[in-house]
Each structure stands twice: as C-alpha cells, then as structure tokens.
C-alpha cells in the first residue's frame, strides 16, 4: 500500500517536475512566473492528439510534434505577452501571464470544444508485480521519459555553451551582454525549452488519464507551481525534487486520508512552504 502510493506519486511527480522546470527556468531568467505554463501543457497534448487523429503518423513523431507546438507557442507568448512589458512593474507581466493563460484556455475551448478526447492510440501496457506492488509499464515509461528529459536539461545547462550562457543571463544580464551574449535570444531559448518540457508532460498525462480537454492544464499547472516553490523557484534541481515530493505527498494524502484530499495536499504544502521556508527546500534565487 505504502509502496504503491509512493510509486504512483513518483509517476505524477515526475510530470509535475517537468512543468516545474519550465516555471523555474523562466523565473530564473526573467523573474516572472509564467502562469500560462499549464496551457502549454494542454497545447502539447492537443497537438499530439489532433495529429494522431488526422494522420497515421508514428507515435514518436506525434510526440515531438506536440513538444514542438508547445515550444513554439511558448516562444510566441514571450514575444508578444512578455517582451514588450519588460522593464516595467513586476506585477504587469504577471497579469499578462494570467491573461495569456485564460486566453489560451478559451481559445482551445473555442477551437476544440469542451469535450474530453481519448488518446487515439491504445497502447498495450502490461501490469507487472514487483515486491507486491503492481506497476504498469506505462507508469515506468512515463517516469523513465520524464527522467530522461530532466537529465537532458541538466546536461544542457551544465555542459553546453548555450546552457552556460542561459545561466549567466539569469545571474546578471548586463554582464552577460558584455560577454557578447544576446539576452533576448537566451530568453527565447529558455521559453522554448521550458515550454517543450511542459508539452511533453501534457502528452504523457493525456496518455496516462486517456483524456485531453481545454482545462486539463489548470490543476497540473498550479501543482507544478507549488512544486517549483517547494524546491525553491529559480533552482533547477529544486524543481525536480519539489515535483517528485509533491507527487508522492499528494498520493500519500489520497491513500491515507481520503482521495478527496488529493488536490488539497498540494496547496497545503504550498502554503506551509511559503510560511516556513519561503525560499524553498533547496533555496531559490531572489530576483
């Protein structure tokens, strides 16, 4: 029972972590909480589902297409909703983010209707029994894929020239410019990556719950935000740890209290963290 809940929690948590990475990277570089992150998650899921419905393409092609759509949408969002507002009062882009989130949700509602869509491909997933815990290969695949994307991101930031330039820009924009780094481009790349990760998360959840709908990003978006705060906003390992912890905590809450409390646990954690350790578990960056 305990192990089972932890396992379910890690699956959901790895997805929160992917979205939380978007929040944290964008916060790191712009000092902005992009509340439209959940809508990029939704956009990724819709793009993949629609493509698979319309054409018989390979699943992986559809997966990367979905990530690509989310990524490009994220870059467009930065260009029109945030860049023109840079340098103003910090609340202004925040309001713009909330507006963008509502706009994208309504747009999806208008374009695709409110109905749930099931995922066009039915996968044959086996249920394994490991040490008395039942694990589906789907859970393993989601967890594995999420870890893979996280590892890719960490390696990118740590070892590539552009990754380091993004970190430098997050630390000190003016000095980054003195190195010849194009700050606008680094911000665009950050949005591209963060949004692609959210898109991947959306696609995985569209498969896991077998449903895609315009408001699907709302709750995961808010939970991932809590996860980012839990780990310390602006902190990349923090987003990963925060996501996993949050997933586990809410599943334990659901298992031992009542499944009705599942969502409440995430936000209870958010409030407690803000009260007790506002910089998050691993320490965030001030902006």
């Amino acid at each position, binding site marked *: 029972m305990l192990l089972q809940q932890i396992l379910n929690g890690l699956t959901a948590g790895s997805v929160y972590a992917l979205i939380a990475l978007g929040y944290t990277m964008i916060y790191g570089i712009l000092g902005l909480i992009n509340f439209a992150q959940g809508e990029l998650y939704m956009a990724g899921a819709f793009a993949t589902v629609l493509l698979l419905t319309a054409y018989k393409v390979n699943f992986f092609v559809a997966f990367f297409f979905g990530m690509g759509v989310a990524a490009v949408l994220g870059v467009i969002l930065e260009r029109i909703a945030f860049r023109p507002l840079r340098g103003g009062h910090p609340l202004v882009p925040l309001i713009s983010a909330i507006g963008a989130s509502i706009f994208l949700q309504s747009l999806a509602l208008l374009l695709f209707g409110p109905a749930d869509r099931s995922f066009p491909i039915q996968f044959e997933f086996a249920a394994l029994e490991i040490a008395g815990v039942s694990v589906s290969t789907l859970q393993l695949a989601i967890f594995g894929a999420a870890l893979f994307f996280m590892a890719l991101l960490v390696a990118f930031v740590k070892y590539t020239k552009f990754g*380091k330039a993004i*970190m430098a820009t997050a630390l000190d924009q003016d*000095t980054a410019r003195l*190195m*010849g*780094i194009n700050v606008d481009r680094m911000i665009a790349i950050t949005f591209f990556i963060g949004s692609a990760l959210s898109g991947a998360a959306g696609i995985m959840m569209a498969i896991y719950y077998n449903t895609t709908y315009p408001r699907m990003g709302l709750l995961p978006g808010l939970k991932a935000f809590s996860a980012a705060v839990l780990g310390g906003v602006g902190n990349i390992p923090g987003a990963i740890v925060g996501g996993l912890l949050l997933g586990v905590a809410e599943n334990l809450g659901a298992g031992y209290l009542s499944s009705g409390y599942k969502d409440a646990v995430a936000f209870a954690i958010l409030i407690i963290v803000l009260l007790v350790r506002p910089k998050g578990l691993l320490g965030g960056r001030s902006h």
Partner: protein
Amino acid sequence: MLTLKSVHSYYGSLHVLKGVSLHVRAGEIVALLGANGAGKTTTLKTISGLLKPRKGQVEFQGEDISRLSAEAIVQRGIAHVPEGRRVFSSLSVAANLELGAFARRDHQAVKSDLQEIQERFPILRERAKQPAGTLSGGEQQILAMARALMARPKLLLLDEPSMGLAPRLVKQIFAIIRHLQETGTTILLIEQNARAALKVADRGYVMETGRISLDGTAAELMDHNEVKRAYLGKGYQEVWEE
C-alpha cells in the same frame, strides 16, 4: 582607435554625461579619473553599449558604434571589465572564462587562449571547477580581467580594478595592466587610486559632474595642482608649498 565626440547619456530622465569628448590611441593606456558620481562608469557603459548615448558619437576604429548593441560591440573588439568584478558567482571559474569567449567562432584559438591564460594565472586553473563566487576579491578581479581577455579584445575597459584590494594585490593588478599594454592591448582605465593609475598611464582625463574638466599626459596631470589636491591626496598646504 576610440573617439567620443560630445557624448550625452541619460538614466531615464537623469542627464549624466553632458558632452564627454575623449580619445584613446592604439597601444595607449589612458586613465579616467574623477570623484564619485562624476560619470566614469557611465562613460564606460556608453562605450560598451550597455547604455545608448542620446547625443554624440562613439567611434571605434573609424566606425560609429554608438547605435550598436553591446553584443555587437564585443565582437568589434572592445571588452569591458565592469565595476565590482561581476563574475558569474554560481558558475565555475572555467565556465566564466569560457563565457568570456562566447562571441568568438575560432574555437581552436579559444582553447589555446584558455591554456595560456590558465598558465599565466595558475589560480584560475587550480580553482577551475570551483564556483567563481567562492574566490577571494582579488582572485575574482583576476578572473574578471582574464574573462575579458578571453574575448581577445583590442581595447580593454577597466572599471576600478583595484577597488577594495590589499596593496600587494593592487600591485599585481597593475603589473598585469602593464603587461597587457606590452602585448599590444589598448586600455582605458578608471581608477580611484590616481597615483597608481597615472604611473602606468600614458595620458589621462579628469571628469567632473559629467564633463571632462582636465586632460593631459600622465606626467602633466601628476604635476597639476588641482589633481594633486583632489586626487593624489595632498593637502592644500603641501600643494601650496611645492
């Protein structure tokens, strides 16, 4: 090599540079002196493109660079070591150095430059993996200068490189500056330590509230009563008696 023609710069509506004109010839070390708030840092920011002049021109090697972005100006060959070092504190020493060469495309040469710089400043090799923020103030200043050198600049802008350093380190910093000149780098140097600056410099300018109030060779300035009194730390009495 570098010419500023009555440059005016603002922070929002605050008028800080009120017609600054100066020039730096290839191979020179030029000192820019002045009291706190005179606009020295603002002058360097205007040259490196962090700030756009609202009036006037900045010419570098015959090209008007006053409308170029900071990124483009680095590529023209101007490196700016900002006031307060500003190393990327949570990135490693090695990453800081690599970022100094961000704009360069000659990757082989970057590698050998990195080797060379690490040989010249062994501390940067010993601490290569350590976060730059854990270095001492003097080591951070050396890192900031080395990072700028990784861009292979033709002109180096130094903003108070000796600020807050112990005398031994100040000496080392000035030795580096002199060595850079010998190896062909042109330098525009801001210093609180006017005596040390005028010792290495060929020429100098004195700034007062956004304008150049004095200029001359280093020897002339060193001998100028106003400079002695205000920047070389001599009292009226001493100046008078000399």
